[in-house]
Structure formats: C-alpha cells, structure tokens
C-alpha cells in the first residue's frame, strides 16, 4: 500500500511540474493583448514562422489546430465546443458549409490585400463574389508519371492513358467526380456535364481503360509513386508535388483537353468569437511577402499574383503547376450539381469500378 501511495504522489508531482512547464512555455510564446484567434488548418499547410510574425505584428495570439479531412473538420465545426475563427476547407466543402449555414460572410473592406489575388481565382461558381471564402492555395487534376519506368511516353492527352503498353500500370484516384470528369474531358465534354447521354458515353469509354488500371486508391498514391511501384497516376497536382519532392524522376502533366481546377479557401466559421481577428489573419495571409514565404514552405500553387512576382521565376514559371493562360481557359471548377445529379455520378463510378472486376 505504501508503495502505491508513493508512486501516486510521484506521478502527481511530475504532472504538476509538467503543467508548470506548459504554462511557462505558453506564456513565453504568447504576446497577446489583442485577444486570440483559433485557426483550423490541414497539417503542415502553413509556415509556422508566419504565425509568430502575425502575433508580433497584431498582438493577437494564434491558437493553431490541424485536421486531416474536410469531413472531419466540418464535424468539429458543426458540433461547436471550440470557437474556430479561421478554417481552410476545399471548394466542395465550402459549398456544403454554406448550405448548412456554417459560415459568416467576409467583409471585403477589412481585407485590402484582396487586390493581390489574381482575378482569375475570384468569383468562382462555388462562392460567387467571394462572399464567404478567400483563396489560399489551388491546383489541378492531372497525370503524374515516371518516365524512367516508361518507354518515352508523354501525356499530353487523356487518351494517352488508354495506350496498350500501359497494362496494369495506371493508378487512379478514388473519386467519382475526378474519374468521371476525366472520361468527360477525354471526349471533349464539360466535367460539369448534366447530360446523361454524355455521362453514359464517358462511362463506356472508361470501362475500356480497365486493363490498364492497377488500383483505385486514395492518399496511398503518393507513397506508391515515390517508391516506383507504379508508373502513372491520375491525381491532384498537390499530391504530385509531394511525390516530386521525394522522387525527382516523377513528372506531372495536365492534358490539353482540359481538367479540373481545385481550391482550398479561407473561411470564417459560425463558431468564430473574434471576427475582427479572423479578418486580420486572412488579410495577413494575403500580404505579398507572407504569401510568397508560405508558398515556398508549403510547395503548392499560390493564387496570389503579387506573391508570384516576388518568387523565384523558376518555380512560378513551371507550367506544370502554374499552367499558362490558354490551358487555364480549359480548366473547370466543379459546380454543385445537386444531390440527384451527384447520385448519378456516383452510380456510374460504381458501375465502372464493378466492371473492372471482370
């Protein structure tokens, strides 16, 4: 009994010491007097130095938390319990959050740095007039491939994926809109098509891709491509950038027929308790120098025109991640198709996956 009491007391003492350590660490890092904001972002999606810089400039303390999927983030915001002031969802999630009344409109007068954003990335179908969201990073859907494992193939057209020499070499991302969209694009249709005949035609064409497909998976694509277990993957440019960071052999291309354009935007959730602080943070992130530094750290494509001008032209001139005007014109942002149409997309995608089994 004595030893149990001793151990318990020792644990309590250790906890007290650790508590003291945490509170003194928090004190040394907090310079707050202008209140605090809670930022909810993807993991490793911001340069931590910028948070310190923001705290110094504005005296607003930043509490920073991370999430790993749009769905997880929405659940936490919907349930409340934490007063998130800024969150960074993807475009379809923004649409859903708007529908569920989870967002606060953004006061554009408080964000003068909005002028830095390339107008091309403003006023998009998922948020007309940028009433609720401000661009953070963007990218495309395209083909990541490893030329060292292929015989000099290039992927300028979606049709190149159908090449008979690619038997069992192609991985595709497990997303209905991405895959059906690819089918539609390869036929020259819009990837927001609501025409069932076009959709059927696209699915029929996709089914003939069956023999070339190695797997239909999610985030594991990055690791498989890094380790050269597959030569070709249909994936997002952000993931491709991750692969290329490790494996220099990998290349990325956005086929000329067109493709999807994706966004991660900053929003202010309904749970916000410091709306002024949230605006200050968004404005800070749009500052040219801040955005340039952040882009260099994260490695995705920035929508910030002023930042692009500050950055290394070798990076921003890379047409794989900053596509030129004429290609951009063929890129489309996903429109909200409505529940019924989305059901048809999912149904066709399922049909395509089932057909592959045979």
């Amino acid at each position, binding site marked *: 009994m004595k030893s149990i009491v001793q151990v318990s007391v020792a644990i309590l003492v250790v906890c007290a010491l650790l508590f003291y350590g945490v509170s003194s660490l928090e004190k040394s*890092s907090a310079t707050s007097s202008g209140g605090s904001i809670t930022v909810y972002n993807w993991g490793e999606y911001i340069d931590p130095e910028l948070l310190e810089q923001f705290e110094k400039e504005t005296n607003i303390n930043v509490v920073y938390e991370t999430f*790993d999927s749009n769905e997880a983030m929405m659940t936490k915001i919907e349930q409340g319990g934490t007063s998130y002031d800024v969150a960074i969802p993807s475009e379809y999630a923004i649409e859903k959050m708007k529908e569920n009344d989870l967002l606060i409109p953004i006061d554009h007068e408080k964000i003068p740095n909005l002028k830095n954003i390339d107008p091309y990335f403003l006023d998009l179908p998922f948020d007309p007039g940028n009433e609720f969201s401000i661009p953070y990073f963007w990218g495309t859907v395209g083909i990541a491939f490893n030329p060292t494992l292929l015989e000099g193939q290039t992927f300028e057209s979606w049709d190149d994926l159908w090449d008979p020499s690619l038997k069992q070499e192609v991985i595709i991302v497990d997303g209905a809109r991405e895959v059906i969209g690819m089918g539609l694009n390869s036929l020259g249709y819009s990837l927001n098509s609501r025409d069932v005949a076009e959709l059927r035609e696209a699915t029929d064409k996709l089914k003939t891709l069956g023999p070339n497909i190695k797997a239909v998976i999610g*985030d594991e694509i990055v690791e498989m491509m890094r380790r050269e277990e597959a030569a070709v993957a249909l994936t997002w440019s952000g993931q491709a950038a991750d692969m290329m960071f490790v494996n220099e052999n990998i290349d990325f291309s956005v086929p000329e027929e067109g493709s999807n354009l994706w966004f991660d935007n900053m929003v202010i959730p309904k749970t916000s308790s410091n709306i002024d602080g949230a605006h200050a943070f968004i404005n800070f992130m749009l500052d040219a120098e801040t955005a340039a530094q952040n882009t260099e750290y994260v490695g995705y494509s920035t929508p910030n025109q002023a930042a692009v001008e500050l950055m290394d032209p070798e990076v921003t001139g890379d047409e794989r991640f900053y596509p030129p005007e004429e290609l951009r014109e063929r890129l489309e942002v996903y429109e909200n198709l409505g529940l019924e149409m989305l059901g048809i997309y999912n149904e066709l995608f399922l049909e395509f996956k089932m057909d592959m089994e045979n």
Partner: protein
Amino acid sequence: MGKLSKPARVYLAFVFFVLYAPIFYLIFYSFNSGGTMSSFEGFTWEHYAAVFNDTRLIIILLNTIIVALLSSLISTAIGVLGAIGIVFLRNRKMRNAVLSLNNILIVSPDVIIGASFLILFTMVGVKLGFASVLISHIAFSIPIVVIMVLPKLQEMSFSLIDAAADLGASKRDILTRVIIPYIKPGIFAGFFLALTYSLDDFAVTFFVTGNGFSTLSVEIYSMARAGITLTINALSALIFIVTLGLVVGYYFFNQRARTIGTGGQ
C-alpha cells in the same frame, strides 16, 4: 534461453526483428539530412534541433504526457475499486451483467466512443480542451484496469479476508493491508496498460480536442495530407529512448529491491 533449440532461437530472433525493425528504421532516418524517408543522404542533428525549437510541438508532447499520467492514475483508482466491487457482488447474475457491460466498453470501437463523447460534451456545454480529453481518457481506461485487476482478485483466497477479520482487522485494514497488497501486480499492470492506451489513442481524442489543446497522435495524423516531417522521427526516437531508459531503470530498481528485501530469492 540456453534451453531453447536452435530453430526456436532463430524464430524468436526473427519475431523480435519484425517487432523492432520499423522503430529502428524510423530512428535511422531521423538522422537523415535529405529531409525525407526515401533515401539516406548524410548525417545530421538538425531534426533534433527542430524538435527543441518547436514550442508548439513540445507543448503538445507535454500535454500528451500529462493527460496520460493523470488519466491512468485516476482510472486505476476507480477501476480497482470497481473490480473489488464486482468480485464482492453476491448476486451471480448481477455480477455477470456488470462484467459484460465492462467488456462491451472494451470491444466497442473508439470512433463510436469518441463521437458519443463529442455529442455529450457539446450537449452539456463542456468546452472542448484539456478537461474533455482527460475525462474521456479516464472513461475508456477504466474497463481496461478492471480487466487487469480482476484475475488477481479472483485468484485471491477469500479465507485470507476471513482470517484477517477473525484477527480483528477493520474493513479499512482488510482493504489496505490485505486486498490491495495482494493485487498490487494487477494494479501496476492496469496502470501501465492505461498509460499506453492513453498515449496512443487517436480516434477518441480526435473528437474531443479543441481550443488549442491537442495530443501527439492527433497532431501527427493530421500531417497525412502534406507529408510527415522528419521532426516527428526525431521526436519518436527521443520518446523511444526515454521509454527504454524507464524500463531499464525499473528493472534494476526491482532487482535491487528484491535482493535487499528477501535476501535474493
């Protein structure tokens, strides 16, 4: 070890290799100057320096340890009393029912427990943060402690208690001088199991963290999209070494205590 045949020894070595290889692989790359885990370029301490420079990461680590220690301490106290209560339940049906309820909590998926806690906390109006994480960790550790302590209690002869009572021990004496010393190994086993459960729990913790309070498992998992940095490797290596030190220290301490206490039995 000397009694084992050669194939058995080889097999044992293989098992331990499989168990430890991933850990050493991870530690090996924590010294990689290349910045990723795919090719080793050169030796560097920079990732260790990064751990100590990252105040946020250190705060999260300390929080994780505080929650683990406190929650396992409290859940051990509650669990031991619970186990004693279950053993002394007269009604057999009742005892089985309570035990089954305990077991259901062990096998039910963490996601369900986490989501339930999230809903409960937001309904009651508890702010998510330290308290909510601590409470849920205590809650999911209690059934584990009960399961660890029960066998020790069941193996204890009840005549010990009768004898103590005959010799004039009060109820309190029986508890602190007979029962608890007897089940001590079970109590420590329960405590350490609760500690590891709390340290590596992700699913429950994910739902109930908030307001800037986070634990290591949640933090590492959310790096999945943009890639986990080698700083995490360095941190894991440090944790592994500290754990190793604690285990070795405990072993020597135990050895010495035994030699002194019983004359080297």
